[in-house]
């Protein structure tokens, strides 16, 4: 049977996109990529800017900061400082991908392979996503969240809701569970439970403070005995969760808004932990799939001549001294590591890359798979910047002695908890001023930024009573205190 070229011109049509999708789907299946069903939407540049500003969500509640993002992206785009992404993909079931109308047919094909089969299979199979996100219910949840916040705006006024959202956004990164698994909920259930929660939560909070206030005498005795009862018993890393459940004076709707922000933060948490892997995986597959299309003579040389520069551009890694250097390119690094896994695994390469994709996140992926070859190819080296030293020191380079060190350093660099200060809820003063104490355990003596005071003010707004942030040293004694 003579194979027919999929496309001979660079103009895309709906029909051609469909044909490409069909072939790419066939090849993806051949390589055992397990994906959610796809939903591809062609959008224009303005819609892409919209999508940017709602943080890549098909819908989101309204907030001025998204407007700012939009203005920013629009300005950059209009002045030609930055192009638009070719695509945007949403971790949902069916998997939603936005393709930009300005893309040529080649780009559309690459993007379909990249997003609709690469990212899609990652979303479906990586353990973090399986653990923390619910692709089938996210869209429903966003609809619920948007409507709920809209109704709050109607009831309590836009400015009150906005103030609350500002505060929640400040603490968003501290609104994720790292170890517990929330149950998936559909929109109806969510609504139902939200009502119940409202009533229950308020009663709980009332109880907490009522009891503590009633027994004044006993309280005093306890205080005198300096028997400080700890609440929470263990430090809590999910600050927003703690506030939602325990802040004394919040209205039920405010608790629900906190919950919404928390949920969305949780949804993005795996993406923040797997950025490099995810992009590397998608890039690896678009490259492999397009190669296969070419091997099967479904695309011609002309197609490849357009594809190769595009691909090269995606995995471009400028050297550290280049003016355009903006950190390690996650596409380049991820692509290199996955390609390296493939080359070193022989015939079983499909199983090998699949295993890596399923069971790791950026940090562990690097620790496991960053081979000397990749380190050599990228000539990676690490530099220690110690405030106490007058100069920077090169700590490791791409040699026998350095491989391990570079690997460890890079793995740490991708460790989210190393990039965010470790701050946890430590104690609530239940008997005195009801103040909330947080504790910061510094990592490598790194101080907190000047933002800290402002965040604490926000936190105080939620807590309604004094908020304190203690910095403790390795021995556990407090070295400094911020208060708001």
């Amino acid at each position: 049977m003579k194979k027919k070229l999929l496309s001979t011109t660079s103009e895309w049509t709906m029909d051609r996109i469909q044909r490409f999708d069909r072939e790419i789907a066939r090849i993806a299946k051949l390589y055992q990529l397990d994906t959610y069903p796809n939903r591809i939407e062609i959008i224009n540049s303005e819609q892409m800017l919209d999508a940017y500003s709602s943080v890549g969500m098909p819908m989101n509640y309204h907030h001025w900061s998204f407007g700012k993002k939009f203005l920013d992206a629009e300005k950059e785009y209009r002045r030609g400082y930055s192009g638009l992404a070719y695509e945007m993909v949403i971790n949902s079931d069916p998997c939603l991908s936005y393709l930009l109308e300005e893309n040529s047919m080649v780009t559309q094909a690459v993007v379909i392979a990249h997003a609709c089969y690469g990212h899609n299979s990652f979303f479906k199979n990586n353990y973090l996503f399986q653990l923390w996100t619910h692709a089938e219910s996210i869209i429903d949840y966003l609809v619920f969240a948007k409507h709920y916040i809209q109704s709050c705006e109607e009831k309590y006024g836009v400015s009150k809701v906005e103030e609350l959202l500002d505060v929640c956004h400040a603490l968003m990164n501290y609104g994720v569970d790292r170890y517990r698994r929330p149950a998936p909920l559909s929109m109806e259930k969510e609504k139902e439970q939200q009502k119940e929660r409202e009533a229950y939560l308020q009663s709980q909070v009332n109880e907490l403070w009522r009891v503590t206030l009633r027994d004044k005498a006993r309280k005093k005795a306890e205080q005198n005995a300096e028997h400080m009862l700890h609440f929470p018993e263990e430090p809590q890393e999910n600050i927003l969760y703690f506030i939602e459940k325990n802040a004394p004076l919040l209205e039920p709707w405010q608790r629900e808004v906190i919950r919404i922000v928390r949920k969305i933060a949780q949804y993005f948490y795996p993406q923040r932990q797997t950025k490099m892997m995810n992009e590397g995986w998608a890039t690896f597959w678009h490259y492999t799939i397009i190669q296969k299309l070419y091997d099967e003579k479904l695309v011609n040389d002309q197609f490849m001549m357009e594809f190769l520069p595009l691909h090269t551009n995606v995995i471009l890694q400028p050297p550290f001294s280049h003016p355009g250097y903006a950190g390690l390119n996650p596409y380049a690094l991820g692509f290199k590591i996955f390609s390296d896994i493939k080359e070193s695994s022989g015939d079983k390469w499909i199983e090998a890359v699949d295993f890596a994709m399923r069971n790791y996140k950026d940090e562990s992926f690097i620790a496991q798979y960053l081979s000397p070859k990749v380190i050599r190819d990228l000539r990676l080296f690490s530099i220690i910047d110690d405030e106490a030293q007058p100069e920077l020191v090169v700590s490791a380079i791409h040699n026998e002695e350095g491989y391990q060190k570079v690997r460890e350093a890079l793995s740490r660099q991708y460790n989210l908890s190393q990039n965010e200060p470790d701050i946890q809820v430590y104690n609530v003063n239940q008997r005195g001023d009801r103040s909330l104490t947080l504790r910061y355990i510094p990592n490598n003596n790194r101080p907190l930024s000047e933002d800290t005071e402002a965040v604490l003010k926000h936190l105080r707004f939620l807590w309604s009573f004094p908020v304190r942030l203690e910095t403790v040293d390795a021995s556990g004694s407090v070295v400094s205190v911020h208060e708001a």
Partner: protein
Amino acid sequence: MTQIIDRRFSDKNKSAVNRSRFISRFKSHIKKAVAEAISKRSITEIEKGEKVIIPAKDLSQPIFRYGIGGIRETVYPYNQDFVKNDRIKRPLEGSGKSQGSGASNTDTIGSDDFGFELSREEFLNLFFEDLALPDLIKKQFSQIQTSTPVRAGFKKYGALPSLNILRSLRNALGRRIAFSMSEKTELEEIEKKLKQLNMLNPENSDNPEIINLLERKNKLIQKISAIPFIDTTDLRFRNIVLQPKPSTQAVMFCLMDVSGSMDEARKELAKRFFILLYLFLTKTYQKIEIVFIRHHTTAKEVDEHEFFYSRETGGTVVSTALELMMKIIRERYLSSDWNIYGAEASDGDNWNADSPHCAEVLIQEIMPCVQYFAYVEISPQAHQNLWEAYVEVEKKCKHFAMRTVENTAEIYPVFRELFRKKTS
């Protein structure tokens, strides 16, 4: 199975709400920028968007993060010639990027400040907001149309001067031919018969047949001559219809008292007033000229900058400005192509004996040739005789509007007069 959807033509402007939230949140900054822009801009430039810069500290969305300091280890790609334990000088603050470029140009935005362009609409909305313009009116800055006479065929009735002689005569001729047709054919036959009879019997003139025929012939000739040469039904008149035509050019006269009592604040108010009129005109006309006339005891045509920013002292004779305006109209804008608008701002001071004269000039000369004349009296202590004189003008001329204005919000009612007239 993959679903492919073309969504390019739906879901437009999803971010509009967020954008407007952003603008309303930073309204105080943005309004300041707009107010500054208004005082800086020339009237004709008012319609552009405006660049607004918001300082980073007001925009910040603080989060817990690391500050500078401590120990950090970072991995970089493409080592060139470093080996382990090499020591490198710490790069200067700002990592040596683009040093010096910021210092020379004070206009550049601070690295963290947020700058963006306010669109023309957003700018004007903020401008209008100050002026307390109802939404409807903003939209209604509607077309004022003038009409030009256009020939549209002919009609049967009309005034004699528009009589079309050629058409009328042609009609008359046609009618005469038509009405005399049967008579003329009969006449021809009679002539033929008479000729025959005469040939057969030239001598015999008493032949009764001949007498009959001659009688009949005379009758026919009479009948034919009785047909009128021209009849009222023949008359055709040129049909002229007035076709509405958007007028393309206008001239706006800005008259302002610049005597000592007009301080900066009042001039600022006057400027807003002139801007509003200008904007109103831009909705209607493609080309607008602005004539600035300032006056104290004498009037002078000046450029915009001098108009708003130079100071004079002394008494006030308003009529000088009105006369100068009339003179300029006669010299430059008399043809019907020009739509003329007048706007006068003053604090109401005038030399007593001059006010009646002002009213006279307005009523007799200016008002007949302008579309609209608006007078605003800015923060007067008490109305003086100029106001009273103008009240007379207002009574006589419908397209004259006058108001006292204490602040910018009161400027708009002056225009409402005009719109009310349009909508009724």
